[in-house]
């Protein structure tokens, strides 16, 4: 699949409707003999958002490409990865100014590959910054740390009316051996995350005692994990670079992350979220311990250090 073509088209088109974008992603995939399910185009968009190529406004059904930037990877010797818009000739132009290496998405990780990671290097940051600027790309430094520093604490949405009597509902079960899962049940008085279908689409409500709150999928699940004291955030030390401890984050039980939290972790490596066995564990590489701690704290989790 010529996935970089999709990013180039987004960069030319600049903004648009999510529905139209998903159709074009699916079209491009079909032209590569892939036949993605609609959930896969959604997954692709979440990856592209985490990679900071675009912002996806799911509520209003709009997307917009983000400014073209180079993000310094933590403790990687001045190596930066491109984020934001990327027109077809950008890599070619950068190659005439800087050392450029590309890292195609691991085709095995999912049906729909994400855009190629483009790595740029120079002998100094000054030289790197100058070469990027000549090609219209802004150098922004360690964006992962900047974002991690600004992460808002997890919070539930506005108050909501309880589901109507007789509505078909599902409740998030957090205690099962197979990890998290929604189970169709009759509406009862238990607290927790409930899923309803509204106009054919899932809608989430969180019940705390007698009150109901709107929630998105990720927030609702993370809130439920926190309320039940279920740790899912692990970090494994891998190397020390100067004062920086760098390692890998494991997020268990298929717990989803809100967009900015995912972006903070993904921009540590410039690579999309990888998944462990049965897709129950999300894996983020090259994450400084400080970033991992900030992300974990923002989702009401305590970072568990593993060896």
């Amino acid at each position, binding site marked *: 699949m010529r996935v970089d*073509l999709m990013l180039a*088209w987004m960069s*030319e088109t*600049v*903004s648009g409707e999510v529905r139209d974008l998903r159709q*074009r992603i*699916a*079209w491009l995939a*079909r032209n590569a003999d892939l*036949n993605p399910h609609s959930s896969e185009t959604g997954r692709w968009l979440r990856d592209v958002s985490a990679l*900071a190529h675009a*912002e996806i*406004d799911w*509520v*209003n059904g*709009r997307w*917009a490409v*983000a*400014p073209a*930037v180079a993000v*310094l990877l933590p*403790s*990687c*010797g*001045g*190596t930066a990865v491109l*984020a*934001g818009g990327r*027109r*077809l*000739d950008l890599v070619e132009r950068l190659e005439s100014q800087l050392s450029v*290496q590309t890292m195609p998405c691991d085709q095995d990780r999912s049906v729909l590959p994400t855009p190629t990671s483009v*790595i740029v*290097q120079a*002998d*100094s*940051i000054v030289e790197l*910054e100058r070469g990027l600027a000549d090609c*219209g790309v*802004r150098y*922004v*430094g*360690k*964006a992962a740390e900047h*974002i991690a*520093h*600004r992460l808002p604490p997890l*919070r539930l949405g506005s108050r909501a009316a309880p589901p109507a009597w007789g509505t078909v509902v599902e409740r998030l079960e957090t205690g099962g051996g197979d990890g998290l899962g929604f189970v169709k049940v009759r509406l009862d008085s238990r607290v927790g995350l409930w899923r309803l279908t509204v*106009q*054919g689409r899932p809608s989430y409500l969180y019940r705390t005692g007698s009150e109901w709150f709107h929630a998105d999928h990720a927030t609702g699940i993370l809130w439920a994990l926190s309320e039940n004291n279920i740790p899912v955030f692990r970090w494994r030390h891998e*190397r020390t*670079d*100067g*004062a920086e401890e760098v390692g890998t984050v494991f997020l268990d039980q298929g717990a989803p992350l809100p967009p*900015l939290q995912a972006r903070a972790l993904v*921009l540590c*490596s410039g*690579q999309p979220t990888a998944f462990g066995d049965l897709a129950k564990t999300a894996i983020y*590489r*090259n994450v400084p311990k400080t970033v991992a701690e900030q992300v974990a704290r923002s989702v009401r989790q305590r970072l568990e250090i593993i060896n």
Partner: protein
Amino acid sequence: MGSLVEAVLRLPDPYERWQARLADEFFSGRENQPVVMFVDRSVLQELADPGEDGPRALAAAVRQFVDVKAGRQMFARAEAAESAWRRGARDQPPPTLPILALSVLAASEMSRDGVIASNNYYIPLSKAMLPDGTGAEVSALRDVLRDRGAFTSVAEMWGQLHRWLTESDGKFGVSTIREHPDLTRIGYPLSQTLVRRSDRAALTRFFDRLNMLGEGVPGPESLLSMLRVWTSYRSQGLSERFIASLSEPAVEDYMRTLVHQLAVSWDGKIITAEGLRRLDLRLVIDLDRNSTWWVIPAVQDVAEDVLSGTCDGQAFNALLAVDPYSSLYCVEGLPPVATSALVAGLVARGTSSVAEFQPSKVVVLADNADAGGWMSVDALQPYEEHVFLVAQEAVDEVERVLTSAADGGWRRVSQPIVDQHFRGYAIYFGITFSDQAALESALIKLSVNVVASLRTGANVRPRLVNGLPILRNVARNIYLSGGEPDLALPVGAEPRKTAVTIDGVTDTVLASIFPLPISRIDNWENGPHVVQADGEELKFVVARSGGDDRLPAGIGSIGWENGELGSGLPKASVCGAIVADTDAERPVLARRGASESWLIFANGQLAEFSEPASPIGFEHISFPLFEIDHPKATWLAQKRRGRWMITRIRFHEPNFRALSPSDRSLWSELAQTVASADPIWNMYMRAWKTFNAR
């Protein structure tokens, strides 16, 4: 003498009344529109006064002006009147319309059974003129009209009408009167029987589907070809006679021209035969709540109406109003969905519009956000998820298609649930078709009624779809290189192969709901390309970029503020990888692979340094440099292939003191081998020399 002539030329009152009625019906307010003087019994009855027998009254009026007993000269008075009209202002139609109308009535009677030949025209014509005549009288009149050539005068009258319309330059309409290559004389009236008012109304739906306002009018040949495809499985409201004419060699040329004339003069409105705007009644099913209702997609030229109809013997009135937040009308009062409407259709008629649901054994539905459920659609779309509502008699056939051709994952809704609303029907959901060969193969075995719902495409003309279009504000046909569009071909109920030519290279392809992916055929060069199919020519342009070197408006138009995503924020806290009010780090870099590395401090002391481990988890990426960020060191000295290189870590003046023997030894080596123009390093060199000289 003059008064005698005037008396002869003066039209009898009944004849004049019919002349006026026909002139008003066919030649008034028709400027630049094709005029088809279609007349049959029902049209004449509509034109007649209440209580009057239209066809008989017309015949009687004509006989007051035409002496059917005068042999070959029977039309002499009419010819004289027409001759006098020719010498006048000619600001009204020629005074022969009642006679011509009778000749069309006869042609419509003749062509009702589809057999057209000159030898079976004159009996209907004689009967039209003598509706109560005996067999002998009719037969005698037939002989005069045909064998003795009296009808030649009528043919000449048609010729005169044609000339008048043409000379009037469209003021009274555009002539559709044609000679017939074989049926010379009767060809004129015959030409007026092929397109009736209801056909013209039905054609407006076809014209709408062609998107002619946006894409222009196709050529006459391709228009006829697309019309044949459109009518291949359903009459679409067109008369049998009209549809038969589309493939009748004797009238094909005429139909081609006429349909094209009608297309060119179409005003963009979809109307019914009564002139009402046609609306679609669509069925919506909410599978989650097991509910169903009707909706009506909004059109531009109907803002409100009160629709009335009958469903299951119950009359209903529904109020239709525009909903500014939806593509559907806000409608109140439509009846509940009933199986009877699925079987027989449902019509709701208003003062300016009529909404209709056409019955089908297989109703295809697609997800529609405005409808809030699965809404019935005209055509199956490949790769899109659908729901099927299937009549019991078609269930076996449809299940065979689903089993052999649909993607996995489709299911049948439990029958007791379906029976609550659709007794005698089955509902399938989760249906997606993404295998063209499998679908085509499965459809071969199906009956026409079922296959039509599944094979017929959404397009009635070739169209470029999908792809990655750019510069859409400049043109609709510019595509990013590699993202060339697909070619969607019209698909009817029957399998159809058609020649497709791209940039002069022709291939034959099977028309299908699966469009032809042009981007997979070749690597298309930047620049214009031409596709020809079904008589139409489509152009697209390939470009590697929009070519605009300005920063496009809209980049970064969505961003984060206080954890909320929003549009048009003046200065978002986070947008992509940009975080407001932060400084980009600029670490000092040093090259890896040195045989020795030493940190140099401002006091001149040195400490051996080990390069940090290379990053891991980056396959095939080399990291030739590392960041050096010791809190106190000012320089890094690295030995590589016997030569020392230095990298400044920070500005700090030297302040040498208490160097160890190894420090001194290293400084001596550095002083001899490091060549640097850096003034700070030169300060360190001077400091070392001063220290060493003590």
